[in-house]
C-alpha cells in the first residue's frame, strides 16, 4: 500500500478543498480506513468513510457534532465493528474485535470523559489492567518517568488523581495509552474540557509526540484548533468523508463551510435589546455542600447579579466552579443558606421548583439526559415534563394527552425535530433533536427568564443556529436569559453582559463587544479578576482560535 | 408499546375470565368417588420428618399399616398457608376416598369443621384442637401435665438453678407447655429462675425454623441456663444441636422421644428426657375405630393419667430422680396439683 494518497473522488460530488500534497516517503500509512459503513442506532450512520493517516503526523478529523466522528473512532479502536469496509494498519489489513486487539496493534484512545480512578495514584491508574507490562512497582514507576520525560508530559507518578486538575488528568490519560505501547493515539475532543491556555500546552505535547514519530488522530469540531495543530485534515459530514484539507492553505471559513456544507452560522447578537427593567435579581447567594471527603465547602459565595428584560447574561467558567449549583439554586432544586432570588419583582427564594416554572422560568439543563428528558418515555410525554400543570398538558388535574400530543406535533414541526413520530422514545433521537425538543418545550410556555446551560452542546450546526435564533428572538420580546456555556465564542457572541465564575464566586465581568476568549480564559483559571479590559494585541491568535467568530 | 399491549392483554383477560366463569359445568368434588383408600393425613408445617410432633402422628399411621393393613396418603403444609389451602388439602383427601382424614395440628381446626360438613360419610380427626361436628374426632393432650414433669426434672438437674423454655410460636397451645413447665420447675425448687422465650410471636414458621431456635438456645446457654425445654416442632432440632455443643447442658425434647430418633443420634447424650405426646396412639385409635366400623367422634383427651402424655426415660439420665418425678405425677393424677394451662 505504498501508492501515493491522492484526493479521493468523493461519492456525492463533494469536492476537496485541496489535496494533501505532503508525501512522507514510501512508508505505509499508519492507519487506512476504506469504505467503512456502520449502521448505528439513533445517530447518523457512518457511510463509505475513507481516511488515511500517515505516520508521524497529527491528523485532524473534523466535523460537526453528530457527524459520526466518534463512531468512526470507536470502530478504529475495536469498540464497534463496521458493517462494511476495511481497516488497514501499517499496510496490514486487520479485523479488530475488541479494544484489546486495537491496543495490541499500537492504537490507543483518550476518551472525552476521562476513565481514571480518583482515589488511586497516577502510577496505580497507569498500571491498572497493564500489570503484566512492567509490574506495579519501581520498574513501572521508572517507565512512567521515562515516557513522561520523553514527551514532556510532566506526570508525577505518586500523586493522587483526585488532586490533579483537568489538564493534568488528560496527560495521565495520554501517558496511560503510551505506557501500553501505543504508536497511534486517538484523542476524542481533547480540548472540550480545557481553557485556551491549557489547549496550547496540550498542543505542545502533541507536537512532541509527533516529533518522536508517533501518530495522533485528533477529533475536534473547533476549527481554529484544528488548523493550528494538524498536518492533515479530514472532514466528515453526515456520516461520510466529504473532503481533505491542508491547514496551511485553508481558512477557517472554508473549512467550516466544508464541514457544514453551507454558510456557517454565527452566534453574534447584533442590536442590543437590553431594557432597564430587572427580571431576575440574585443577591448574596450562599450555598455550602459537603464534598466527597466530608468537608463542608462553600460552592456558591456572595453571588449577586441582575438580568434585565431583553438581556442575555453570559456566565463563563471552567466546569465545576459552581455554575451548575447556581442554576439549581435559581431553579429551586437546591436550597441556598443565604441570599434572595427575585423574579419579576416577586421574591421566589422559598418557592418550590414547580412554582418557579409556572411563574415563567424556562430551563434548558446542562445534562439533558439527567435533567431534561425521560429517555424511555415517548416524545409527547417528554413534552409534558416540567409543565404538567400548565395547558395544554392538563386540565383540572387530569392529563390532556390529546392536546399534549397535538402540541408536540407542533413543536416537532416548528423546531424541526427530526423524528418519524411523537410516539418514539426520546432515547431514539439524536442529541441535537433531543435538544431541539427541549428548547421547543421550554419556549412554548412564554418564559420570562430562560436558563440555558450549554444549550448547543452536542448539537449539530444547523440546530445550533436555530437555537441561537430562538434565544435572540425571545430576547427581542423581552426575555431575560442566563446563558452558561463552555463555548466561549457562543458566550461572547450571544451575551449582552459577561460574568466569570471561579470557585463559587463571580470574580470578573467583561464586555462581550471587546473581550477575547483568551482574556476570558485567564479569568476562568483565576489568573485575572475584576473588570476585564480588552488590551490590543496582535490579533492573529484570537481570530484563528475558533472558526465561528470570523468576520 | 404500552398502549397496544394493554388492549391486547385486556382482550385476553376478558376471554380468560369469560372462560373461568361460564365454561365450567363440572366441579371437582363431583368427579371423585370410590371406596375408602385408607387414612389421609395432613401434616402441619415441618412434615413427617420433624423428629417431633408430625413424626409421632406418622408413627401411628405406620403402625396402622403394619397391624391393620390400612393404606395411607400423607400431605404436608407449606409455610404461610391460608385457610383455603388447608381446606383444599383436606378436601382432596376426602374426595379421593380416604377415610379417616386427619389434620395434624390445631391450624386445621376450622378447615376440618368446614370440610367435614361436605363429606358427612367420612370421619375426620383433628389433633390438638376441638372442632364441632358429628363426624369429627377431636384429639387433645395434657401437654401442660407432661410439661410439669419436665419442669420438675429440669429444676432437679439444673446446677445453676436456671432453666429455659423455648416456644416455637406464642400461641395458646404452646403456652400450655410453658405454663406446665414453669409451674413444675417452681414447685420443685423455689429458687429456680425460669426464662421463657418464643421464636415468633404469631408466625407458624416458628415450627419450621431450626436456625432461629439454635440462636435462641445459644443465647440462653450464654446467660448460664443449663436445661432448656424446647416446644417448637422441627425447630427444636436447632436448639438441641446448640445445647449439645455445651458440656453439662441438657435439652428436653418434645412430642416424640427424641433420644430415640435416628436424626438426632449425634446429640442424644444431651437429651435429658422428652415430654412424649402420644399422638401416634391417638391416631392409631382413630384409624382402628374407623376400620372396625365404629368411628370415634367427639372430644378425646389424652392426659397424663391415661398415658396420653409421659416423660421419656431413654438414656437413663433421669433415673436418679425417678422417685421425685413419680411423686409429682401421682399428685397430678390424684388431683392434688392442678396444672395451669396458661402462664
Amino acid at each position, binding site marked *: 500500500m505504498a501508492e501515493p494518497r491522492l484526493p479521493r473522488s468523493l461519492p456525492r*460530488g463533494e469536492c476537496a478543498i485541496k489535496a494533501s500534497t505532503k508525501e512522507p516517503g514510501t512508508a505505509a500509512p499508519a492507519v487506512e480506513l476504506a469504505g467503512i459503513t456502520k449502521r448505528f442506532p439513533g445517530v447518523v450512520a457512518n457511510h463509505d468513510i475513507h481516511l488515511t493517516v500517515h505516520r508521524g503526523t497529527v491528523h485532524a478529523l473534523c466535523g460537526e457534532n453528530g457527524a459520526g466522528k466518534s463512531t468512526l473512532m470507536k470502530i478504529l479502536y475495536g469498540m464497534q465493528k463496521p458493517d462494511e469496509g476495511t481497516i488497514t494498519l501499517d499496510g496490514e489489513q486487520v479485523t479488530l474485535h475488541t479494544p484489546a486487539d486495537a491496543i495490541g496493534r499500537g492504537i490507543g484512545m483518550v476518551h472525552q470523559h476521562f476513565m481514571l480512578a480518583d482515589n488511586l495514584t497516577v502510577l496505580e491508574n497507569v498500571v491498572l489492567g497493564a500489570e503484566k507490562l512492567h509490574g506495579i512497582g519501581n520498574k513501572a514507576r521508572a517507565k512512567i518517568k521515562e515516557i513522561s520525560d520523553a514527551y514532556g508530559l510532566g506526570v508525577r507518578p505518586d500523586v493522587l488523581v483526585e488532586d490533579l486538575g483537568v489538564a493534568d488528568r488528560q496527560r495521565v490519560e495520554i501517558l496511560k495509552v503510551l505506557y501500553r505501547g501505543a504508536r497511534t493515539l486517538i484523542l476524542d475532543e481533547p480540548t472540550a474540557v480545557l481553557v485556551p491556555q491549557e489547549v496550547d500546552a496540550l498542543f505542545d505535547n502533541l507536537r512532541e509526540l509527533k516529533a518522536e514519530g508517533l501518530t495522533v488522530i485528533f477529533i475536534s469540531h473547533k476549527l481554529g484548533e484544528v488548523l493550528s495543530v494538524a498536518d492533515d485534515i479530514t472532514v466528515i459530514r453526515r456520516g461520510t468523508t466529504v473532503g481533505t484539507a491542508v491547514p496551511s492553505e485553508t481558512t477557517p471559513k472554508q473549512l467550516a463551510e466544508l464541514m457544514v456544507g453551507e454558510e456557517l452560522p454565527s452566534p453574534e447578537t447584533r442590536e442590543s435589546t437590553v431594557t432597564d427593567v430587572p427580571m431576575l435579581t440574585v443577591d448574596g447567594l450562599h450555598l455550602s455542600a459537603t464534598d466527597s471527603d466530608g468537608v463542608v465547602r462553600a460552592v456558591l459565595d456572595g453571588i449577586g447579579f441582575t438580568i434585565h428584560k431583553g438581556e442575555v447574561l453570559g456566565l463563563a467558567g471552567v466546569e465545576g466552579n459552581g455554575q451548575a449549583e447556581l442554576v439549581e439554586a435559581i431553579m429551586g432544586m437546591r436550597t441556598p443558606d443565604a441570599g434572595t432570588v427575585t423574579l419579576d419583582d416577586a421574591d421566589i427564594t422559598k418557592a418550590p*421548583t414547580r412554582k418557579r416554572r409556572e411563574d415563567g422560568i424556562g430551563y434548558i439543563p446542562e445534562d439533558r439526559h439527567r435533567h431534561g428528558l425521560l429517555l424511555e418515555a415517548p416524545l409527547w410525554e417528554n413534552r409534558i415534563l416540567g409543565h404538567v400543570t400548565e395547558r395544554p398538558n392538563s386540565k383540572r388535574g387530569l392529563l390532556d394527552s390529546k392536546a399534549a400530543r397535538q402540541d408536540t406535533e407542533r413543536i416537532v414541526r416548528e423546531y424541526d425535530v427530526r*423524528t418519524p413520530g411523537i410516539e418514539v422514545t426520546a432515547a431514539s433521537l439524536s442529541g441535537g433533536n433531543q435538544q431541539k425538543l427541549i428548547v421547543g418545550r421550554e419556549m412554548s410556555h412564554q418564559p420570562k427568564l430562560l436558563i440555558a446551560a450549554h444549550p448547543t452542546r452536542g448539537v449539530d450546526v444547523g440546530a445550533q443556529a436555530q437555537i441561537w435564533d430562538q434565544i435572540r428572538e425571545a430576547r427581542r420580546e423581552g426575555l431575560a436569559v442566563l446563558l452558561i456555556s463552555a463555548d466561549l465564542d457562543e458566550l461572547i457572541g450571544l451575551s449582552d453582559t459577561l460574568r466569570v465564575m471561579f470557585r463559587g464566586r463571580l470574580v470578573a465581568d467583561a464586555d462581550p463587544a471587546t473581550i477575547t476568549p483568551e482574556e476570558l480564559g485567564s479569568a476562568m483559571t483565576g489568573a485575572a479578576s475584576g473588570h476585564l479590559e480588552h488590551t490590543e494585541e496582535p490579533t492573529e491568535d484570537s481570530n484563528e482560535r475558533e472558526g465561528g467568530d470570523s468576520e | 408499546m404500552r398502549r397496544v399491549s394493554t388492549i391486547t392483554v385486556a382482550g385476553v383477560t376478558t376471554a380468560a375470565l369469560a372462560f373461568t366463569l361460564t365454561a365450567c359445568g363440572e366441579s371437582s368434588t363431583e368427579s371423585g368417588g370410590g371406596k375408602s383408600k385408607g387414612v389421609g393425613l395432613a401434616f402441619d408445617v415441618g412434615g413427617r420428618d420433624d423428629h417431633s410432633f408430625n413424626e409421632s402422628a406418622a408413627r401411628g399411621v405406620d403402625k396402622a399399616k403394619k397391624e391393620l393393613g390400612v393404606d395411607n396418603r400423607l400431605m404436608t403444609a407449606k409455610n404461610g398457608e391460608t385457610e383455603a389451602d388447608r381446606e383444599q388439602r383436606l378436601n382432596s383427601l376426602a374426595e379421593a376416598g380416604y377415610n379417616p382424614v386427619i389434620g395434624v395440628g390445631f391450624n386445621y381446626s*376450622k378447615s376440618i369443621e368446614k370440610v367435614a360438613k361436605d363429606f358427612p360419610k367420612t370421619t375426620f380427626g383433628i389433633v390438638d384442637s376441638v372442632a364441632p361436628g358429628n363426624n369429627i374426632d377431636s384429639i387433645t393432650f395434657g401437654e401442660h401435665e407432661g410439661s410439669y414433669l419436665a419442669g420438675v426434672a429440669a429444676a432437679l438437674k439444673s446446677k445453676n438453678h436456671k432453666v429455659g423454655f423455648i416456644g416455637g410460636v406464642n400461641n395458646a397451645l404452646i403456652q400450655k407447655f410453658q405454663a406446665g413447665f414453669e409451674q413444675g420447675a417452681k414447685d420443685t425448687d423455689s429458687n429456680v429462675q425460669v426464662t421463657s422465650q418464643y421464636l415468633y410471636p404469631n408466625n407458624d414458621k416458628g415450627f419450621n425454623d431450626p436456625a432461629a431456635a439454635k440462636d435462641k438456645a445459644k443465647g440462653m446457654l450464654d446467660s448460664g441456663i443449663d436445661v432448656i425445654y424446647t416446644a417448637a416442632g422441627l425447630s427444636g432440632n436447632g436448639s438441641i444441636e446448640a445445647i449439645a455443643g455445651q458440656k453439662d447442658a441438657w435439652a428436653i425434647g418434645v412430642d416424640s422421644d427424641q433420644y430415640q430418633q435416628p436424626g438426632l443420634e449425634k446429640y442424644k447424650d444431651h437429651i435429658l428426657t422428652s415430654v412424649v405426646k402420644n399422638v401416634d396412639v391417638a391416631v392409631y385409635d382413630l384409624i382402628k375405630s374407623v376400620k372396625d366400623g365404629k368411628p370415634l367422634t367427639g372430644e378425646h383427651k389424652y392426659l397424663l393419667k391415661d398415658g396420653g402424655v409421659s416423660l421419656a426415660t431413654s438414656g437413663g439420665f433421669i433415673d436418679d430422680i425417678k422417685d421425685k418425678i413419680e411423686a409429682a405425677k401421682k399428685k397430678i393424677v390424684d388431683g392434688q396439683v392442678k396444672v395451669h394451662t396458661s402462664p
Partner: protein
Amino acid sequence: MKRLDKNKLILGFAAPVLAIVAALAITSIIIAATGKDPFHAYQVMVDFGSKSDSQIWIVNKATPYYLSALAVAIGFRMNLFNIGVDGQYRIAAFFAAVVGGKLAFPGIVQIPVIIIVAMLVGAMWAGLAGLLKVTRGVNEVISTIMLNAIGASVIGYFLQDGRLAVKEGNLIHTPYLPDSAHFFEIPTQPKPVYGFVVVAALAGVAYWFVLNRTRFGFDLRTVGRSESAAQASGVSVKRMVITSMLLSGAIAGLVGMPTLLGVSYNYGTDFPTGIGFTGIAIALLGRNNPVGMALAALLWGFLERTGTQLEFEGYAQEIVGVIQGVIVLCVVIAYEIVRRYGLKAQQRKVGEELAAQAGNSDKAEVSA
C-alpha cells in the same frame, strides 16, 4: 407509522409468549428430572384447574394477591421497593379487626369503617418507611423489612388472650366481627365468590386512572423514570416518596380485607401471612400493568390450586414453587430482552428514516 405499530404489536406479544414457552420448557425439564412425566402434570393441572370449584377457589385466592400486587406496583412505578406490604396488610387487618369487633353499626357504616381503618393503618405503617427515607435517607427496603418484623411483634403482643384477643380452643383471635360486617358474596356454584373481588377490580381501575390520566400519576411515573429529571421538572421527590408510600400502604391495607370480611371475620393466629411477598412476584409478573397483574394473580392462584393436586398425583410438593419461580424469572428476563430489542429496533428505525431523509435532502442540495 403503520409499520411501527405492527412491530409494537408483535413485540407486545413476543414477551409473554417467549416467557411462557421458556417457563414450560424449563419446568418440563425439571419435572422430567424428578423422574415424572411433565405432560401428565400439565394435563392434571388443566383438568383440575378448569373445574368450577377450582375456578372459584382461584378467583378468591387471586383477589388478595391482586390487591397486594397493586400496592407493590405503586412503589415500583416510582422506583420504590415496598417490601413491607406483608407487614402493612397484617397490621392493618389486625387493627381493622379490633375496631370492627368493638363496633356494631349497620353494615353500610360498619364495613366502610373497617376498610378505612385498615387503609389508614396500612398507610401509616408504610408512611413510616417513607418518612425515614426522606428525613434520614434510610433505604425503604431495609426499613420496610424491619417494619414487617416490628408489625409482627406488635400483633403478637396484642394478639393475646386478655389483651385485644380472645381464645377459642388453641386458636387466639380478635373478637368476631358482627354479622353486619360480613361482606356480600357473589352466589356462584358450588361455592360463592368473595364480593371483595369487585373492590379489587375497582382498585385496579383506579390504579390505572390515577397513574395514567392524572397530573399526580404523571409526576409519580416521572420520578420512577428519572428522579433527577423529575426534580428538575418541579416534582418534589421527597413529598412524592411519602405520598406514594402512603398510597401503597393504603392499598396494602385492603389486602387482608377479603379474608377478614369474607372468611374469618376475625384476625387470629391463623390469619394468612406472606401475601405481601407474593404480591411482589405478581407485580413483577404483571409488569405493573393493572390487567397484567390480574392475569398474574389468577395464574398464581391456578398454580397453587393445581399444585396440591399434583402432590396428590405423586409429584413433588415443591414443583409448584419451582414453576412459580421459573415463571417470574422467565417473564422478567423475557420482558427485559424484548424491551431492549424494541428500543434498539426503534433507534435503528429512527436512524434509518432520518438517514433516508438526510440522503434526500443531500441530493436536493447537490442538484440545486
